[in-house]
């Protein structure tokens, strides 16, 4: 049995169905990211699990206890579910230590002090214990928020867009740090985000959410490489959608033959990631470079194919092609996925 189970969960606000018959399972110690565009209902999902909203239908089970279901609503304070808020929601009248110890008020003093100290060490803020929260940097505030949620040793930690209020430059480093802290604490965590990179790099599994439902769940590699639908393919990273005819393990398209991950037959659409295409300047050109986005370690080209289609191609930045250059684009040796529309 999974550690956290969400079954048939629905929640509407007036005429808006934020979450529709949603199912989700999280294993113990797992870090699961719910990835979806803004307005897809992911924050509502989080708030229902935390107990701040009550579901219209369905149930939530945490650690074998039904916390929300027909005829049973456990109030948030009794759920053993910790939450890290988007803008942290630190208590401005309490010190760093006071914030972290807030959820431990029912424990004996010694245990409380020990847990507070240990959690502050875990997030590397033991030297800031006595500080006021407004003296902290953005990254430090986030670590306090995380420590505060982790201190009572909850069954589940929820993180609501935890990096969205940080500078882009800080984000990468903090992402890794937060992941390490969560793994050190052996916490089970559910993170919601609209940032593909964040979800793919951080999580053990990614659940893609759209219009109140989970449309695909799997390890990051699978969600990226084998999108379940055209929408999922387009939402999780950049993609070229090509039409072709499948014959067993290969698919014939206007750019040539791609290998298929899963054999198919008949007329299909395939999702081709920008790095699954190659360029060469020798031989017959079949496309023209219309735009170039230099990203340092790699380059994203926008091409116009002779068939009229716009293609995205991502290449290492070792060799650069100029805008206006005529190039030959062809499949790279990598398997692609046929889309279910």
């Amino acid at each position, binding site marked *: 049995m999974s550690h956290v189970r969400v079954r048939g969960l629905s929640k509407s606000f007036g005429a808006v169905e934020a979450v529709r018959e949603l199912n989700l399972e999280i294993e113990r110690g797992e870090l699961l990211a719910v990835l979806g565009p803004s307005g897809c209902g992911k924050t509502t999902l989080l708030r229902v699990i935390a107990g*701040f909203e009550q579901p219209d239908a369905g149930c939530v089970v945490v650690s074998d206890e039904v916390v929300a279901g027909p005829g049973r609503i456990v109030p948030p304070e009794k759920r053993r*579910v910790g939450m890290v808020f988007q803008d942290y*929601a630190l208590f*401005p009248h309490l010190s760093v230590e006071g914030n972290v110890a807030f959820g431990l008020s029912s424990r004996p003093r010694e245990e409380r002090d020990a847990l507070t100290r240990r959690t502050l060490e875990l997030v590397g803020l033991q030297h800031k214990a006595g500080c006021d929260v407004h003296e902290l940097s953005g990254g430090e505030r986030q670590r306090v928020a995380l420590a*505060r949620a982790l201190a009572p040793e909850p069954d589940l930690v929820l993180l609501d867009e935890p990096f969205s209020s940080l500078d882009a430059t800080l984000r990468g480093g903090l992402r890794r740090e937060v992941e390490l802290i969560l793994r050190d604490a052996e916490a089970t965590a559910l993170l919601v985000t609209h940032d593909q990179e964040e979800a793919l790099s951080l999580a053990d599994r990614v659940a893609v959410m759209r219009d109140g439902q989970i449309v695909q769940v799997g390890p990051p590699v699978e969600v990226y490489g084998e999108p379940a639908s055209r929408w999922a393919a387009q939402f999780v990273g950049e993609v070229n959608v090509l039409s072709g005819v499948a014959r067993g393990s290969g698919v014939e398209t206007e750019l040539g033959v791609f290998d298929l991950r899963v054999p198919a037959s008949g007329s299909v659409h395939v999702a081709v990631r920008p790095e699954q295409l190659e360029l060469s300047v020798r031989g017959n050109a079949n496309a023209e470079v219309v735009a170039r986005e230099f990203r340092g370690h790699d380059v994203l080209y926008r091409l116009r194919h002779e068939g009229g289609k716009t293609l995205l191609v991502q290449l290492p930045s070792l060799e650069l092609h100029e805008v206006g250059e005529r190039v030959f684009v062809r499949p790279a040796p990598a398997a692609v996925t046929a889309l279910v529309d």
Partner: protein
Amino acid sequence: MARGRLDGFAVATILCALLVAGPLIGLPLSFIVAPGGLSRFSGFVPEAVGATAVLLVGVGAGTFLLGTALAALVSFFEFPGRRWIEWALVLPLAMPGYVFTLFALGLDVPGIRSTLGAVCVFTLVLYPYVYLLARAAFLSQSRTLLEAARGLGLSRARAILRVGLPLARPAILGGVALALMEALADFGTVNLLGVRTFTDAIYRVWFNAFDRDAAMQLATLLVSVTLTLLVLERLARGRARHAQLAARGEVVPPVRLRGLPAMAAAILPLALVGLVVVAPLAQLAAWSVESVREGLLAPEFAAAARNSALLAGMSAVLVPVVALLLAYGVRASRSRIAAVSARTATIGYGLPGSVVAVAVIVPLGWLERRIDGVAGTGLLLTGTVIGLFYAYVVRFLALAWGAIEASLLRIPRQLDDAARGLGADRLDVLARVHVPLLRTGLATAALLVFVEVLKELPATLLLRPLGGDTLAIAVWQATSESLFQTAGLPALLIVLVGLLPVALMIRLSGRGGVQVEASPAVGAWAEEPEEVPA
């Protein structure tokens, strides 16, 4: 749906609101219960209507002229001492009408015992309402509008009259409405000056004839006038906001006055403050010294001071606590019915103390008879301070509510959620998150209630238990018997304590803006926002 659900907090809020607003809503019922109640006092109503009308017209015109002129002076002109004078002009807010009346009667000002005398007294102590609102409106006006008017050939004075004044009109009318509500609510001044208005009629019907139905009916009539003014004030406030938004831009640079005009601009306002605040304070101090030296102090003075301190102190705890529970109940239950109920509970706002007293006595008396029938406790409610506290809650709840709700709104809801996610139930959230964050708001509310209860005269007079005289009653009693020296010390104490919230307001508005609300005196002003990082 969580929003429509009635949980414990919502029910508690609604009950509390009913308790507070119920008696006021019940007032008009007296016309049904005793249809001919007023026939015994047929002379009272025309007399009261006449006196009240004259009072309203006179005080309205007086505060309008004085308040607007002073506001225009400090907003559009620069002269020596302007920054000090700007705030000194607010000080009369600390002077209760009946204390100024004591001063005027003590000096034996000719013709003071008349409706015109009352109009003068009210104008002098109530003009700050108009002054503050008009000043805020003038200061928010953009120079472009005035410059446009001058470009069209108007002199500066005419530009102010034809553009500045009309733009500030909603704010000024709002201030006048507040001043008029205060004048209507007053009992001490009109009673001492022998002006027979509604509050005075209620008092006479109550004490001389013991006719509660008639008192309730008079109170209903008075309330309808007050509520009309309240509605006018609300409308004016909404329009004032529009006018100020429309007129936003660079501020109007003040014109520097020189020579004789500059001297006049500095001296006349100071003379006014001297007349309304400094001279009375000096006179009261002199009387106090005389009374102590010559043994003229009333023997009950110590008891009255103690009663005042106890009543004001306990109300300063009780009323903010009720307001906090009410405000938090709305927030915690997220129930719309609770929110509407809480709003209803604040209609005691600006209602005359005599009306509130009359309104609460009837349900309390009914309840008391029921309890007496069972337990034989006698006058448990109306004969003790319980009735008085009840009246204070009804009367001053809005004052505390305003101060507390303003701070409560600045606490992001996420903090509530965060605390609950960490195992705090809703009462814990209140105790461990809100109360510490609301310290300033709660302290402000407590101070306002303390001062208002200390000054309060009519409700206390009507509901006090035997031997429960307060400083305010001592001042009124001694003044009505022309024992001015005896009245000096209690009056001095009331004014000095009353200066505290005015000083606080001036200090706060140095940083933020001043706002006057429809409230017995200073009202809930814009409080300095506490630093609550979201």
